[in-house]
């Protein structure tokens, strides 16, 4: 049975079929039954809408059942199930943003520049993953153990290869300009971003690259028998993304806080000259920072690919801008801030599209950023420096 929610189009990913546009849906309906959720502020409106759905779906070919509920017109959808589904989707999206945001925040912390090519490093990571998946012939029909093994292998190889890209960008575009005026590396960053995009566009083609779902299925948390009739699904790919992100973030925080590598990294962040006076190879530490950021971005790339199932050479731009926003929102330079910011941007976007309108989700995310920055210029977790000198 197909389930739709008015106005008969896709509202979210959780189990809803994708129908775009408003053209009539009269053919290619494999199912015999359609369940449509409609809402209205009066019985009359509901019956009107039922009529509308009948024409829209051309019910000669199938049976239409409607679930309807009354609510003040224009009001918010306040079902628990709907909320839960948006929450799950938002956390998933936020995890991906958070992984990318760490790269922005770390590079900013250590050399005080925005690495605008970072979003494109994420895109390169997604492409490397896709190429590996296709080359190895990984599909959902493989035995589960093999699939997991293949994904782990792909993740590691992709992290390694993407790191090389991140390292190279730093070496070619930023290091020669260190000590130059502040805007110079910013401009080469934009240049590096354009180069990466065009390189992938030329070498891989400009078309969308689809991928059959690798990890189909999931848990149904609510089967639609509740008052709202809304189905809540937590897909396996969402679980994978959330778990991988959580594990990586814990591992990464430990790396930064407890190991000598992390201490070297933080010391360069706080005082590069002093770090070198203690025998730390600052250039190497900066390179490592880019490598760490790039490898996390490549994980985000693979997650994005698995979740959305389609990538192109341009995905790095918007994801990069969002992740950068997340880093600024959380307080640029702060690691927990980047994670929190990523999560918040993901949630804001998802809830805004779920409850208001998909078209304005970016406006919502950036507005929240503007508001937070007005009242907390350091971001949510960025601390104003209180230091005795």
């Amino acid at each position, binding site marked *: 049975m197909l389930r739709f929610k008015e106005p008969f189009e896709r509202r979210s990913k959780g189990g809803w079929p994708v129908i775009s546009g408003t053209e009539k849906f009269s053919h290619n309906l494999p199912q015999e039954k359609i369940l449509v959720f409609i809402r209205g502020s009066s019985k009359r409106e509901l019956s009107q809408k039922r009529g509308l759905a009948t024409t829209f779906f051309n019910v000669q070919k199938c049976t239409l059942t409607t679930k309807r509920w009354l609510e003040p017109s224009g009001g918010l959808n306040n079902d628990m199930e709907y909320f839960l589904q948006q929450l799950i989707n938002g956390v998933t999206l936020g995890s991906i943003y958070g992984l990318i945001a760490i790269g922005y925040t770390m590079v900013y912390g250590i050399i005080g520049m925005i690495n605008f090519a970072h979003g494109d490093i994420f895109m390169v990571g997604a492409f490397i993953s896709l190429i590996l998946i296709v080359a190895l012939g990984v599909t959902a029909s493989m035995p589960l153990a093999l699939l997991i093994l293949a994904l782990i292998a792909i993740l590691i190889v992709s992290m390694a290869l993407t790191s090389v890209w991140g390292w190279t960008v730093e070496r070619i575009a930023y290091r020669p300009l260190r000590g130059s005026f502040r805007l110079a590396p910013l401009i080469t960053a934009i240049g590096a971003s354009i180069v990466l995009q065009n390189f992938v566009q030329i070498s891989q083609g400009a078309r969308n690259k689809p991928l059959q779902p690798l990890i189909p299925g999931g848990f149904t948390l609510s089967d639609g028998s509740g008052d709202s009739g809304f189905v809540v699904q937590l897909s396996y790919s969402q679980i994978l993304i959330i778990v991988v992100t959580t594990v990586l973030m814990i591992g990464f925080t430990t790396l930064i806080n407890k190991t*000598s590598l992390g201490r*070297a990294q933080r010391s360069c962040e706080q005082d590069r*000259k002093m770090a070198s*006076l*203690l025998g730390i*190879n*600052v250039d190497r530490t900066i390179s490592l920072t880019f490598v760490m950021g790039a490898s996390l971005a490549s994980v985000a790339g693979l997650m994005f690919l698995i979740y959305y199932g389609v990538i192109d050479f341009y995905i790095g731009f918007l994801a990069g801008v969002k992740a950068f926003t997340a880093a600024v929102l959380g307080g640029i330079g702060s690691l927990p801030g980047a994670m929190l910011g990523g999560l918040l941007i993901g949630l804001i976007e998802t809830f805004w599209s779920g409850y208001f309108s998909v078209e304005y989700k970016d406006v919502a995310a950036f507005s929240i950023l503007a508001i937070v920055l007005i009242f907390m210029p350091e971001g949510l977790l960025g601390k104003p420096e209180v*230091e*005795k000198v």
Partner: protein
Amino acid sequence: MSASQPLLDVRNVETHYGKIIALRGVDLTVNEGEIVTLIGANGAGKSTLMMTICGSPQASSGSIFYDGEDITRLPTHLIMRKSIAQSPEGRRIFPRMSVLENLIMGAETAGNKDVEESLKKAYDLFPRLKERRNQRGGTLSGGEQQMLAIARALMSKPRLLLLDEPSLGLAPLIVKQIFDAIRDLNRTDGLTVFLVEQNAYHALKLAHRGYVMVNGKITMSGTGKELLARDDVKAAYLEGGGH
């Protein structure tokens, strides 16, 4: 003082910041086991010499030998792994690291395997740091930061300690405490110290030998006592400073 070759040998070093010349042919030696001080007015180039020894910035001409090896063109981090440690001007404590982490930073890259023992020594030298070991470096008082800067430099078990203005901005009592600590380290551990100071009276009293720098040039040198006794030194650096 019996070593045949000096531990640190600075020969005719010039350093430029862009087009501005900061050091104009400096010659200076520090022998093993000595405390040598360099005094001079603000902007004379004392800290520049200190940093040039560490390769940041590198000397534009002349050469610097450490333990017989030419280190003039080595990158900073490699110089600092050669049993040289610096407690720099302005202390440069890592503000968002704990006192303990700051100390560990001093030991780690220098290849000191026995961090625990060095930590114990540092805490013995400045017990205050032990009390504050979990506090962030940026929240320490000026005197505590200075103690931390010196202790951090000592964590690498250096042969040569470069100290840049350890008395700057500190109360006389704390200055005395820090200078006493330097004297002890020199006497008991044989630590060689190169001390840059504006507080000329205390520095010359502490040091075996001293140099006076004016405008990027060494103008006088001699033992601490000799320099203290000279009228021109008194007039230029000790007037009102001899508390």
